[in-house]
């Protein structure tokens, strides 16, 4: 659809037409006795001549730049390329690059190689091959590209994370028991700004300005929002200025504790993406390349510069 804009190049005929002047025959001088001569056709030499050539050039370039911008001009210039996710094991990468024959290829590092490739695919030449390597998450649908894409994936170890839980309760031991078996949870008695979960099990109201994404409230007297709140599976929940509030009590058994923990994890943390399996994505030539806009910024700048030049020259030529 975008390439249809190139048909608008016919507009370039307009400035050419405006700047064209048919040369008048000027070498006819007055002669008093011309009336004794046979009349001749007024001869105009069929020579095309242009006035203000620089201005004409500017106008043509301006229109061309505008049409190129509308047509979303992209010049394919990338050859064989390896797209790597950051943090990929170098040794593993070299082995796979050598295996697939991409030794001399350029390398690009990007966090979401398949998404980035889908946007920028028009930058690759027609016969280019691509290798996508590293920790690539699996998209919802099988991706389709105009180029042949080799996908080699390696799950990278999850980064070590630390979650802070603050417990303000008289039943601290019971609450702590919930996190005792878990790795990566730091349980403290004093809430701070980094706390992701505050367990509040005392009748006193928490200090003003204390915020956390989630509060587990053991004693609802301090949180009037929870009194008339909706409930699900016996648990009341509400949104407050401090964060989300759940009514909770220390788990009576392991099953209740697991269910509570899983609910928390499911609702408050994004799932870890699934690793895409290594595979070869064959080229699907009919695939329409999406809008790239790779040269948009450059073209906009060129357009602005040309416009300024054109105005200046037009003004100067009128003088």
């Amino acid at each position, binding site marked *: 659809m975008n390439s249809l804009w190139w048909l608008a190049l016919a507009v370039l005929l307009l400035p050419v037409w405006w700047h064209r002047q048919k040369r008048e025959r000027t070498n006819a001088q*007055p002669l008093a006795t011309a009336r004794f*001569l046979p009349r001749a056709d007024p001869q105009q030499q069929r020579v095309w001549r242009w006035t203000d050539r620089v201005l004409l050039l500017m106008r043509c370039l301006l229109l061309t730049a505008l049409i190129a911008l509308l047509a979303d001009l992209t010049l394919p210039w990338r050859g064989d390329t390896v797209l790597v996710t950051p943090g990929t094991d170098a040794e593993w990468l070299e082995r796979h690059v050598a295996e697939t024959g991409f030794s001399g290829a350029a390398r690009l590092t990007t966090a979401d190689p398949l998404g980035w490739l889908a946007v920028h695919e028009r930058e690759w030449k027609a016969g280019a091959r691509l290798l996508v390597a590293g920790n690539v998450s699996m998209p919802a649908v099988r991706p389709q590209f105009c180029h042949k894409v080799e996908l080699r994936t390696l799950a990278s170890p999850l980064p070590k994370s630390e979650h802070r839980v603050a417990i303000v309760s008289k039943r601290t031991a019971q609450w702590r028991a919930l996190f005792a078996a878990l790795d990566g949870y730091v349980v403290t008695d004093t809430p701070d700004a980094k706390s992701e979960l505050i367990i509040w099990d005392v009748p006193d109201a928490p200090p003003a300005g204390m915020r956390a994404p989630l509060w587990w409230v053991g004693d609802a007297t301090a949180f009037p929002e929870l009194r008339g709140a909706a409930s699900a599976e016996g648990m009341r929940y509400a949104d407050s200025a401090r964060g989300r509030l759940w009514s909770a009590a220390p788990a009576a058994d392991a099953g209740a504790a697991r269910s509570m923990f899983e609910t928390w994890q499911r609702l408050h943390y994004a799932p870890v993406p699934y690793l895409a399996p290594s595979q070869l994505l064959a080229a699907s030539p009919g695939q329409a390349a999406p809008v790239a806009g790779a040269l948009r910024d450059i073209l906009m700048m060129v357009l602005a510069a040309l416009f300024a030049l054109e105005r200046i020259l037009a003004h100067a030529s009128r003088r």
Partner: protein
Amino acid sequence: MLATPAQLAHTTDLNLVIRYVLAGLGHGIHAGRERGAGVEFSEYRAYAPGDEWRRVDWKLLARADRYFVREAERDSHVAVWLWLDASASMAEPSRSVAGLDKLQYARAVLACIAAIAQRQGDAFGLIVCGGGRVKFTPAARGPRQMQRILAQLSRTEAQGSLPPAETLRASLHFARSPSLVFAVSDYLDWPSAQSEALLRLRHMRHDVRALCLQTDAECDAGFADGSAWRDPEAGKGLFRFESQAYLKNRADHFAGMAADCRRSDIRTLDARIEQSLQTVLRAWLRQAGRA
């Protein structure tokens, strides 16, 4: 001496031209009626620049310490009318003498005629046809009139076309007494409003003398065949030079004109502007003197 038209092309001072050209020409165009009967003294008049020194009354100068000129009653009854065609075609330059054109030549000729008329004591006036209008300077005598006429001649530029017939006809009221009309033109428009006016003047029993100015190149078809030209008066349109057709058309045109003039008894003289002014003037005056 302004022996050649090339020298004429270099001066715009008509006084100078007159002095040189008339040096050997004498005074008379025609035999004045009062000639020989003695010049009757009429009155004194204050000296004006341009008066001849010999007409200054020296005795009176000694008495009054002022210059006075003796005005004599020797006015002829013949008024001289100078008719100048100043249409655009009169700007036709000489193709061999740089800087000379028909209008300049016509100006010089008419200035000389005016000077002769003034010396003779005739009244003289000027009619300039050009730019679609008629510029009319009434006839009078004396050196001031001379200066007026010379200034008018110097101001004239070749432009536009001849005035329309009705304008000319309305302008012809000037000639009541018998007069002498010296008409200088290229007569490329014939018949035209101008020719009509001249024929009419002739029928009113004025003596009309026509001087037809031409150039060497015009007469000899001295232009390259196929070259393109345009008419200075007709506006747009191109004309291609073909010497055969040109010579034939031109000869037909001037033959028709000559026939018309002969029929109306208008004397014509063809002159090329490359000819010496004195020769042409002498030939024209001789023709006139015989009348």
